[in-house]
């Protein structure tokens, strides 16, 4: 039964992690767009005078979403109308279940895979589950009994089904290279080196697939330049008739989709939890220096926060002095904790459990960094490109990406067959 408890615990942690990633991504989106657009971005909402560079706007948004009147327009199909946002959120969360955040934690005969479900066909699971996300949009558009949402739903049904094809083909090329569909095995395989120097990441083996995958992922997450189901300046979107937290759930689902897509792209192409040049065994053997390195990174981050805080206006009356104090305090705490960790890593002798934990932490950090980098890429693209038109989108999907992905797949298979890799 402890297996079930562990599974449940991992699922809860994953869901909480993803749900908390949403405000972070929203914040990144707002601040990054502000940076790109030459403006300040959110900086007003605060708690006790603390503002934290607009971080609390997300809290305010949650309060707003939860307390706004929840309007269900007359004439809608009630059940699907209510079901749609919940479905979207559920599906987005479920897709992440097979993605490993670190290598299997093992110590003294016990081993815990650091992912919710270690499926043999894990990659397919992500596609299968996220392909259900289209129902959320289609049902929302249909049930609203309104023309603009219906247009959004039509666009969405066509778009999501179309882009799944190149997306899956790109992923399958990678799976071919590594000979498995199990995410953890794919990541493990990416720890090997090619030419004796470079980590054998998916992006090195399959650069074309990476481009196709990221393009398809943008389309699957309904982000610019593929945000046609939403298309706020044209058809206003499939969720026009939604308000309050129902609308909020669509938004959350979108950001979770972004996170999941980034995580999957990191898993397939950027080596997942692999710390470059440091396979799990090496991390465990040298857990002390690794911990010291992590501590040093934390200390550097803390120092950066402290330095930033020192540049904020200070003084009793300055509006951001409390921010300076709080951020500076946190930065100081980070420096102290980082240095302490570094000292522990260098001084103390770690047990096998601790060694595995340190290795897993380093890998989880690497994975998180890669995922967030890709998420930032999503944001960056959104604020740079205009939106496609429906026919252009379809043309890109069917006439360019799909043949390209097919050719890539055939070439990959041919190359692997020539190298005799397929008989493994």
């Amino acid at each position, binding site marked *: 039964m402890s297996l079930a408890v562990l599974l449940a615990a991992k699922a809860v942690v994953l869901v909480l992690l993803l749900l908390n990633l949403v405000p972070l991504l929203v914040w990144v989106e707002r601040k990054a767009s502000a940076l790109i657009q030459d403006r300040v971005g959110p900086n007003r909402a605060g708690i006790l005078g603390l503002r934290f560079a607009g971080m609390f706007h997300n809290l305010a948004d949650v309060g707003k979403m939860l307390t706004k009147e929840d309007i269900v327009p007359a004439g809608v199909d009630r059940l*699907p109308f209510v079901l749609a946002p919940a479905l979207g959120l559920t599906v987005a969360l479920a897709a992440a279940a097979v993605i490993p955040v670190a290598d299997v934690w093992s110590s003294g005969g016990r081993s815990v895979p650091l992912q919710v479900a270690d499926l*043999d066909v894990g990659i397919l699971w992500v596609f*299968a589950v996220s*392909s*259900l996300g289209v129902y959320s949009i289609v049902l929302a*558009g249909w049930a609203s009994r309104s023309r603009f949402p219906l247009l959004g739903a*039509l666009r969405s049904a066509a778009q999501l*089904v179309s882009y799944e094809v190149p997306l899956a083909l790109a992923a399958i090329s990678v799976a071919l290279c590594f000979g498995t569909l199990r995410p953890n095995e794919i990541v493990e395989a990416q720890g090997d080196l090619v030419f004796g120097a470079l980590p054998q990441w998916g992006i090195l083996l399959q650069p074309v697939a990476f481009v196709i995958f990221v393009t398809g992922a943008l389309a699957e997450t309904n982000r610019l330049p593929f945000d046609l189901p939403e298309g706020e300046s044209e058809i206003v979107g499939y969720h026009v008739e939604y308000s309050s937290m129902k609308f909020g759930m669509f938004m959350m689902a979108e950001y979770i989709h972004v996170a999941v897509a980034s995580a999957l792209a990191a898993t397939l192409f950027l080596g997942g939890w692999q710390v470059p040049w440091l396979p799990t065994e090496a991390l465990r053997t040298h857990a002390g220096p690794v911990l010291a390195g992590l501590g040093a990174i934390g200390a550097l981050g803390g120092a950066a926060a402290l330095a930033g805080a020192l540049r904020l206006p200070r003084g009793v009356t300055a509006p951001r002095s409390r921010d300076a104090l709080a951020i500076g305090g946190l930065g100081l705490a980070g420096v102290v904790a980082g240095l302490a960790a570094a000292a522990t890593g260098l001084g103390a002798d770690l047990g096998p459990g601790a060694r595995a934990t340190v290795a897993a932490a380093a890998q989880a950090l690497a994975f998180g960094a890669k995922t967030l980098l890709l998420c930032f890429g999503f944001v960056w693209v959104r604020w740079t490109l205009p939106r496609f038109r429906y026919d252009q989108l379809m043309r890109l999907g069917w006439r360019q990406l799909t043949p390209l992905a097919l050719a890539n797949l055939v070439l990959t298979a041919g190359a692997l067959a020539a190298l005799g890799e397929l008989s493994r």
Partner: protein
Amino acid sequence: MTAVAFYALGSLSVLAGLSMITRRSPLASALSLLTLLAALAGVFLLLEAQFLGIVQILVYAGAIAVLVLFVLMMVDLDAAAVRAQAPRAGSLAAGVVVGAAITAAVLRVVLALPPAPAAPIPADSVGTARSVGAVLLTGPLLYPFEIVSLLLLVAVAGAVALAKRKV
């Protein structure tokens, strides 16, 4: 536990199937179909046929049922118009006959199967992508599989040609 899950999923799929053919609203029918497909995928997963279960969702729920919905949205059937076409006695009877025939055929096949092996099937032996691939692409099923693929390709080409001509 497996048995409980099996009976739950089984009855869910039967209910969803019934709901699919009895619902007046096409949308409700489509949603019932979706539920049915998901429940069947669950059954496959219980049988350690991971690949099949997930492909079931990916292909049928994720693509085909979406296309069904897509067409439904385009056509936007009026519920009243559907109600007006109440099933006639003749077609109802024909349905019962055909249904009974199919059930009989399925039962015959199922009853003729050898009894289930006593030991549980090892998880990695049949349901994985590797084992399915081995059966389909290297075994005696390779030629039928490829012929079916060709047939589907021809069907797609034919559909495109027909749709284009209608312009």
